[in-house]
């Protein structure tokens, strides 16, 4: 490098244009000042410890995250901070100076069994979808007939290889883990596109209350658990002799 090149690179170090110079000055300023801010915290993002600014909002369960210039925050990431789990529910893609995202406090650890038999756990945000309804539905057959629970809730959960497989066949047990009774819900609105961009983000589902079933594990809060992991004291099944007898009658049991 000759003298001229050295001189030019020294000039370009702070930006080749006025805009670049302003951009770099802003980034340097943030890099220098942000770590001394009271909002600057160590948080765990998707299992990795990082330093981010966590900025309060009027909604106590929603915070804004700001990263140092050049660092990224992925939409749908799980943040562990202050003994709580938070879900990144939105990101600003305009990250020229720094990356900004919004996170919301999670309130439930959802458990279910995926189609490959894996027990999956994901933190999510459960909220009431029927604030002013009674939460009960009456039989259409008879006004004096039976009634079922009709609670409808919404669930925000990060998109990943397991949650993207969720559909209307999925049931969940969602309730306080100390509650003596557990409510079951079925995914009735598997809308997956609302908050997902470029394969990252959160999906907002609507779930409707259904009855708990015999195959549900109410202690672990996992629906259909015993379909995959049969009880040790197995269900009463017909003996081989009974099966043979039913077949020897000439009539096959089809259902």
């Amino acid at each position, binding site marked *: 490098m000759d003298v001229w090149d050295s001189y030019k690179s020294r000039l370009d170090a702070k930006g080749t244009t006025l805009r670049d110079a302003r951009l770099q000055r802003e980034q340097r300023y943030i890099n220098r000042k942000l770590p001394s801010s009271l909002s600057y915290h160590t948080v765990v993002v998707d299992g990795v410890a990082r330093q981010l600014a966590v900025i309060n909002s009027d909604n106590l369960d929603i915070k804004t995250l700001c990263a140092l210039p050049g660092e990224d925050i992925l939409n749908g990431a799980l943040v562990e901070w202050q003994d709580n789990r938070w879900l990144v529910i939105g990101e600003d893609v305009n990250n020229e100076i720094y990356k900004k995202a919004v996170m919301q406090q999670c309130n439930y650890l959802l458990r279910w069994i995926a189609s490959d038999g894996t027990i999956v756990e994901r933190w999510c945000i459960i909220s009431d979808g029927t604030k002013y309804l009674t939460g009960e539905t009456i039989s259409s057959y*008879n006004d004096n007939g039976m009634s079922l629970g009709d609670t409808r809730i919404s669930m925000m959960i990060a998109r990943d290889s397991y949650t993207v497989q969720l559909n209307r066949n999925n049931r969940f047990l969602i309730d306080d883990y100390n509650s003596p009774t557990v409510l079951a819900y079925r995914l009735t609105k598997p809308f997956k596109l609302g908050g997902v961009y470029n394969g990252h983000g959160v999906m907002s589902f609507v779930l409707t209350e259904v009855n708990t079933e015999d195959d549900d594990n109410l202690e672990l809060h996992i629906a259909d658990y015993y379909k995959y992991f049969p009880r040790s004291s197995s269900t009463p099944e017909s003996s081989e002799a009974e099966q043979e007898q039913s077949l020897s009658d000439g009539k096959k049991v089809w*259902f």
Partner: protein
Amino acid sequence: MSREAFLGLDELFDYKNQLMEDILTNEKIISLLSGDAQSQTSADSLVYTQVFPFEYVPDVTEQAKTFICCEVDIREVTDKTFLDPAIYIWVFTHKSKIRLPEGGVRTDKLAAEITSVINGSRMYGLGELNLYSVKRFSPITDYQGRTLTFYAKDFNRLSPTNKPIPANRKRG
């Protein structure tokens, strides 16, 4: 039986009481009412939780269960001497419990068991209790079953009733 018994509608209690006894003392019916994975439920604990002596399941149902409800109507009073009671039995279960592990449909089997116990029974009124109809029944979303209807015959009242005669009534 006391004279008063032939003047009131004791059938409403007597029939239901007999029916509850017939249902709750039958092991097959108790087994079908219990969950597949649960241990055998005691008969007493089923009363007003899964077996109801009226056409109503009072609590909000949160757990998939099988229910039996029964009701007694007086279908027709044919004359001063006889009346025609009808017994209605609703058998219904959650869709997750419809299919039996050994094959078959739970509500069909329950309907068959109940019918085999009480059809032709002489414990309900005069003569034999007769099956009149078996129809499909779906009380609410996710629940399906059958309605069994039985007809009986019983006494209306004794004649004369020995009720007091008003003082201003002309007497012959």
